């Protein structure tokens, strides 16, 4: 009886007194532990240390991850370390994700700016294109005007009319003289430059001689001009000829001067279809 009571008393006493001592001893003896989870946390944090972009783009999360890892490193027992290391690993991953997000957002801002600039450039380009096209049309009109002036042509309702007088033909004959050929060269240049235009060649005479002869002569003169154009490479489909004989005088046949004006070939450059 006494022995058992003594035992109980002794045990109880020692147990209570020894508890803190046991704790302190066990704590000291174990020191910081090293588990597999701390290794994972370390390697997750190593990624932050290796990439300066991460701490630059997620400074707070990176700092938190470092602090969490530090806490986990200090853990004195395995379950605590596993818990703290898990948290440290997650925090490191959060820092990485936050940094990636921030970098992507910065890229978006940059790309938006780039897109705006490209669209602006595109609009400027469109305006420039319109300006250039207008300029081209104006230049073409001016050029046409200059070319027509060179041919001494007149703009009429039927189109551009160019008159070759009889000085370009021998009297009573249809062959073109060299002076006439020069004008034909200009005309063929013009037609080459403006492939969408055709010509109507009309021969006219004065009233000297029979009407039948004059009709034939007027046709032959128109044909002579046509042949000259064909020789210069103008397609036959673009050329129409007609002889009107003496029926359409432009001046009186009573004077020599008037007759001279009536002996002519009119070339109508047809308007664009």
């Amino acid at each position, binding site marked *: 009886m006494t022995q058992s009571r003594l035992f109980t008393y002794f045990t*109880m006493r020692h147990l209570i007194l020894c508890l803190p001592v046991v704790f302190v001893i066990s704590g000291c003896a174990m020191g910081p532990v090293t588990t597999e989870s701390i290794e994972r946390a370390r390697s997750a944090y190593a990624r932050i240390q290796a990439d300066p972009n991460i701490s630059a783009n997620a400074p707070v999360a990176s700092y938190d991850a470092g602090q969490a890892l530090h806490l986990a490193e200090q853990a004195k027992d395995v379950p605590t370390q596993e818990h703290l290391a898990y948290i440290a690993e*997650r925090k490191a*991953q959060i820092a990485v994700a936050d940094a*990636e*997000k921030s970098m*992507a957002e910065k890229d978006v801002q940059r790309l*938006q700016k780039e*897109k705006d600039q490209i669209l602006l450039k*595109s609009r400027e380009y469109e305006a420039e294109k319109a300006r250039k096209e207008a300029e081209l049309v104006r230049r073409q009109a001016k050029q046409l005007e200059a070319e027509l002036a060179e041919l001494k042509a007149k703009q009429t309702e039927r189109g551009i009319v160019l008159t070759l007088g009889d000085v370009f033909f021998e009297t009573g004959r249809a062959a073109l003289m060299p002076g006439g050929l020069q004008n034909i060269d200009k005309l063929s240049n013009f037609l080459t430059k403006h492939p969408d235009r055709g010509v109507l060649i009309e021969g006219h005479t004065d009233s000297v001689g029979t009407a039948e002869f004059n009709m034939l002569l007027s046709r032959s003169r128109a044909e002579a001009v046509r042949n000259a154009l064909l020789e210069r490479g103008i397609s036959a489909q673009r050329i129409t000829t007609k002889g009107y004989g003496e029926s359409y005088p432009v001046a009186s046949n009573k004077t020599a001067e008037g007759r001279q004006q009536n002996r002519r070939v009119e070339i109508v450059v047809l308007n664009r279809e």
Partner: protein
Amino acid sequence: MKKHLYEIACALTLCGLVSVSGCAGNGKALTEQIANTEKSIVAARDGNASINAPLELKLADEKLQAAKAAADKNEYDQARNLLEEAQVDADLARAKSGSAKAQQFRDSIKALLKEIEKGQKAQEIYYY
């Protein structure tokens, strides 16, 4: 004998006091912590985490449930640890889906830009 009884009584009272005060304080803080973690999980799910970070979201959810069960059994330390882990899981889920969304947006703008540039080049070739 009397001394012996006195000591036991003292120890028991001390134990009781510690555990009771612990319970009351812990319970309140834990409820708050549970609510916070639940909020974080909902926020992550709203941020499309179920597509971009499904595993982290699931872990967070599971740990939250486990924490609630531990709290019901008065295992407060266990519950707190689980909640802390659920919290970082939810935070990671949210961060990951935020990152995925930003990257998707960036990629779509990049593709758009490429298309515009391609179109412009074709136009320039056509007109010059």
